[in-house]
C-alpha cells in the first residue's frame, strides 16, 4: 500500500526534461555578496569579537555559577518562610504597595501630560517648525538616555526622601519612551482624512483634532498602559534609592539583614507585578481589540473587558435617529477608560498628598541641586570612569546575547501556534513568573551567590532578557502567517523543517533588530544594577553619591549619558538597515 521504493517512474521517465537537460547552469547558485550581506557578515564578526572580549572581562564561567548555586539555596533558605512583621508588617506592606502603585500611576500620568504636546511637536506631519521638531526630539532622547534611577537620585537629593521624587523620576524618564512612540504613531496617521478635512477650510488645530487625534487615541492609550506596567516594575527599584514605595522597605529590611521580612516584601512585589501585567493585558486588548483583523475563528471572541462592558449595555442596539452618538460598546469602553484614569489620578493625588502645584515649585529646587553637579570633575584616577563604562557595556552585551540565545527556544515553546497546547501554557506561566521578579531582586540574589561584581549583574540581566525576549518572540511568532507554513508542510517537510523554513528564517531580521534594542535597554539596566554591587559604572555612581562628591557624580552621569546615546545611535543605524 505504501508508495515508494525509489522515485516514482512517472516523473522519472526518460522524457523528463529534468535529467536530460541538466546543462551547466550559467547563474551562480550561491547568494551574491551584496552590501547588505557583507554588512551582516562584518557586523556578526565584530559582535563575536566583542562578545569574546566581554566574556573574558566579566570572567564568566559555569563553575562559579555551579559553586554559587549552593550559596543561592542557602540564601533562599534564610529568606523562608516570609515573615510579615517589622518592615514587612502586614498593614505597612499593603500601604507601601498601594503607594508604589500610586507612584507608578502618577509618574505615567505626568509623562503623558508632558509627552503629548512634545510628540505633536516632534512628529514630521504635525510639527509647526523643523527647528521645534529637532528640539522636541532632543528632549525626548535626553529623557530616554537618563536612567530613571539617576533621575531619582538627583530628585531625592533635592527634594528629600519621599514619593514626589519617585513620581518625577518615572515621569521624566517615561517621556523618553512615550514621546518617541507617540510621535511615531502620529507620523503613521494616514494623510488622506487630513487632506479631506483641510479641504473643507479647517484651521490647523481643527485639522489636528478632526483627523489625527481620532487615529492616534487608541494607540496612545495602549502605549500608556504598557508604560504603566513598566513603571510599576521600575518603581520597585526606585524605592531602593529613597524614592518611596515598597522598594524603600525592601532596602531597609536588607540593610538590617532581616531576610525573612525582605522575602515577604518581595512576595508582595511579585503579586503586584503579576496583577499589573494581567490588568494591563486586559485593558490593552479591550482598547486595540477592535482594530485587530480577525483571522481563523468564525466568531470574534470577546475579551474580558468587552464582556464586562456588554453586561451594562441594553441588548437592543437598533439605531434611533438622534443627534447624540449612541452608547455603543466602543464608546462605553472609551468613556469608562477615561473616567477610570481621572478617578485614579484624583485618588492617588489625594492619598499621596502630592500637591500638583508643588510639582512646578519643586523645579526650582531641582535646578539648584543640578547645579551642584557642575562642572563635572573627571579626575578619577587610572581611567576608572572609562573602565567602568566599558565594564557596564560588556555586561550589557554578554547578557543580551546569552539571553537571546536562551530566549529563542523558550519563545518557540510559548507561541500558541507552534507549540503543544499544554507546553504553551506552562511556558507562558513560566515567563510571567520570570518577568515578575525585578532584575534588582535577581541581582541581589546573584550578588549573594557569586559575590559582588560584574558576574552577578550579568546573570541578573541575562535572566531579565530571557523573560522579556522570550515573550516578545512568542508574541511575534504568533503573528507569523499561516499559509507559508501550510505550503511547506505540504511538500512533506517535518515539523522541525517547517518551523525553521517558514517561521524562524523569515524572523531573523526582526530578531536582530529587537536584540539590538534590548542591548540598548540592558546597558541602562546594568548601570542601575551597579547600585546593589553588581559592578560597572553604576557601582561608581552609587559610591560617589554615598561620599557626596557631587562633581564626580556629575562626571559619571555625563559619561553614562554619552555611552547611552552612543549605543542608541549605533543600534538605531544598524536597525534601520535591517528592517
Amino acid at each position: 500500500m505504501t508508495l515508494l521504493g525509489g522515485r516514482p517512474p512517472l516523473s522519472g521517465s526518460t522524457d523528463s526534461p529534468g535529467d536530460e537537460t541538466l546543462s551547466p547552469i550559467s547563474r551562480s547558485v550561491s547568494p551574491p555578496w551584496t552590501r547588505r550581506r557583507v554588512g551582516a557578515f562584518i557586523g556578526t564578526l565584530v559582535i563575536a569579537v566583542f562578545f569574546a572580549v566581554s566574556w573574558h572581562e566579566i570572567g564568566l564561567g559555569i563553575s562559579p555559577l555551579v559553586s554559587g548555586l549552593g550559596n543561592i539555596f542557602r540564601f533562599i533558605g534564610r529568606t523562608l518562610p516570609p515573615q510579615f512583621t517589622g518592615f514587612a508588617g502586614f498593614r505597612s506592606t499593603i500601604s507601601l504597595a498601594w503607594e508604589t502603585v500610586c507612584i507608578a500611576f502618577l509618574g505615567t500620568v505626568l509623562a503623558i501630560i508632558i509627552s503629548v504636546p512634545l510628540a505633536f511637536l516632534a512628529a514630521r506631519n504635525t510639527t509647526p517648525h523643523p527647528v521645534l521638531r529637532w528640539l522636541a526630539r532632543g528632549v525626548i532622547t535626553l529623557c530616554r538616555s537618563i536612567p530613571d534611577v539617576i533621575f531619582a537620585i538627583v530628585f531625592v537629593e533635592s527634594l528629600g526622601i519621599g514619593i514626589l521624587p519617585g513620581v518625577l523620576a518615572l515621569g521624566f524618564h517615561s517621556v523618553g519612551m512615550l514621546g518617541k512612540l507617540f510621535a511615531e504613531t502620529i507620523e503613521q496617521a494616514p494623510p488622506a482624512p487630513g487632506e479631506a478635512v483641510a479641504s473643507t477650510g479647517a484651521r490647523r488645530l481643527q485639522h489636528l483634532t478632526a483627523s489625527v487625534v481620532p487615529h492616534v487615541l487608541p494607540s496612545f492609550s495602549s502605549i500608556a498602559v504598557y508604560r504603566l506596567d513598566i513603571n510599576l516594575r521600575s518603581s520597585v527599584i526606585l524605592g531602593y534609592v529613597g524614592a518611596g514605595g515598597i522598594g524603600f522597605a525592601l532596602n531597609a529590611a536588607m540593610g538590617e539583614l532581616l531576610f525573612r521580612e525582605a522575602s515577604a516584601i518581595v512576595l508582595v512585589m511579585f503579586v503586584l507585578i503579576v496583577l499589573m501585567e494581567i490588568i494591563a493585558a486586559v485593558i490593552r486588548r479591550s482598547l486595540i481589540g477592535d482594530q485587530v483583523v480577525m483571522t481563523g475563528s468564525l466568531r470574534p471572541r470577546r475579551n474580558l473587558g468587552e464582556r464586562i462592558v456588554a453586561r451594562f449595555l441594553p441588548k437592543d442596539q437598533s439605531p434611533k435617529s438622534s443627534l447624540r452618538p449612541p452608547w455603543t460598546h466602543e464608546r462605553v469602553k472609551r468613556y469608562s477608560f477615561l473616567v477610570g484614569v481621572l478617578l485614579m489620578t484624583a485618588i492617588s493625588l489625594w492619598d499621596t498628598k502630592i500637591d500638583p502645584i508643588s510639582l512646578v515649585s519643586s523645579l526650582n529646587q531641582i535646578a539648584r541641586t543640578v547645579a551642584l553637579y557642575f562642572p563635572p570633575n573627571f579626575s578619577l584616577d587610572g581611567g576608572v570612569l572609562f573602565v567602568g563604562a566599558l565594564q557596564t557595556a560588556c555586561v550589557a552585551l554578554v547578557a543580551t546575547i546569552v539571553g537571546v540565545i536562551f530566549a529563542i527556544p523558550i519563545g518557540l515553546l510559548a507561541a500558541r501556534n507552534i507549540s503543544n497546547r499544554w507546553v504553551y501554557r506552562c511556558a507562558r506561566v513560566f515567563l510571567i513568573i520570570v518577568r515578575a521578579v525585578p532584575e534588582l531582586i535577581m541581582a541581589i540574589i546573584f550578588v549573594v551567590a557569586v559575590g559582588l561584581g560584574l558576574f552577578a549583574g550579568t546573570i541578573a540581566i541575562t535572566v531579565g532578557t530571557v523573560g522579556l525576549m522570550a515573550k516578545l518572540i512568542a508574541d511575534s511568532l504568533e503573528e507569523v502567517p499561516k499559509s507559508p507554513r501550510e505550503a511547506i508542510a505540504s511538500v512533506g517537510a517535518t515539523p522541525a523543517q517547517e518551523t525553521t523554513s517558514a517561521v524562524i528564517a523569515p524572523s531573523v531580521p526582526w530578531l536582530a533588530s529587537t536584540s539590538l534594542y534590548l542591548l540598548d535597554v540592558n546597558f541602562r539596566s546594568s548601570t542601575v544594577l551597579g547600585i546593589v554591587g553588581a559592578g560597572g559604572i553604576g557601582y561608581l555612581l552609587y559610591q560617589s553619591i554615598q561620599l557626596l562628591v557631587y562633581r564626580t557624580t556629575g562626571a559619571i552621569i555625563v559619561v553614562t549619558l554619552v555611552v547611552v546615546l552612543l549605543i542608541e545611535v549605533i543600534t538605531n543605524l544598524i536597525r534601520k538597515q535591517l528592517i
Partner: protein
Amino acid sequence: MSVNQSGGTAVHIKGLTKSFGSTTALDNLDLDVPVGQMLVVLGLSGSGKSTLLRSLNGLVPPSAGQVEVLGCDVVAARGKELRELRHHVGFIFQQFGLVGRVTVLENVLSGALGRIRFPRFGVLAYPKRLRLEAMENLERVGLGEKAFQRADTLSGGQQQRVAIARTLMQRPVMVLADEPVASLDPESSASVMNLLLRICQEDHLTVISSLHQVELALGWADRMVGLRDGKIVLDTPASETNQATLMEIYRRGVGEVEPASMTVNSAPKVLVAPGLVGPA
C-alpha cells in the same frame, strides 16, 4: 506503476464527508481519478472545492469516508507516511504560500525538504546539487534572474510561478492546485495557468485543479467535475461538453442556491467567470 497497485488509479475517494461545526463542506462524496488525468473541479466559492483538494494531501482530516491517494490511505496516514505522500503530491495554493521575507531561491529549495533530513536555514544550508536543481526549476518558470530577491518583492504572477518551481522541486507525481490563479489579474492568470499545464503535460503528471475560469479549463482539462454544496453535480469528459453547457450549469447553480446559504462574498466571484468567458 510502482506507486499504485490499484490499476492506474491515482485518487480513490469513497463516502468522503467533512463538516466544520454545523456546516457540511463535503457530503458523502465519491470520486476516482485515473493516473495521468487532468481534472478540473468547478463550483461556487464555498461549494467544497478547497476542502476536497486539502483532504487529498491530509491538510484537512475528513469527518468520515475513505481517501486513497497514490495507493496511500490518507485518513490513516500519520507522520512519516503522510510526509512521504505529500512529498510526491505538489500543492499550489491560491495565496502562493511563499515565505515572503526570504529569497526566491530559498523558497524554491524548501520544496526539497521532503527528501532531505534536518531543518535548513539559508540557501547555503542546501547541498549544491539541490541548489543547481532549484535554479534549473526557477529557469523553467522563467525567473532565474530573480533568484536572490526577496520573494515578497515579486508580483503576484511571479510569486505563483515561484510556487510552481517549488512544487517542481518535489519532483511530484501529482499536482493539486487550489484556485491557482484566483488572486491574479486575467493576463497573468492565463500565463501562469499555461505554464503550470505545460509543465504538467511535459512531465505527465496527474492534475486536479479547482478553477473559476471555465474557458481556461476547457482548453486543457480531460474531465470536468462540478461541485455544489459538497456534492458532485456534474462529471463529464471535457471533450463531450462545451462552454455553453458548462456555463449553463454554472449559472443554474447560481440560480438554485437559496439566498440564505449564499454568502455575499461568493457573489462577485461568480460574476467574474461569465465575464471572462463572455467575449469568446
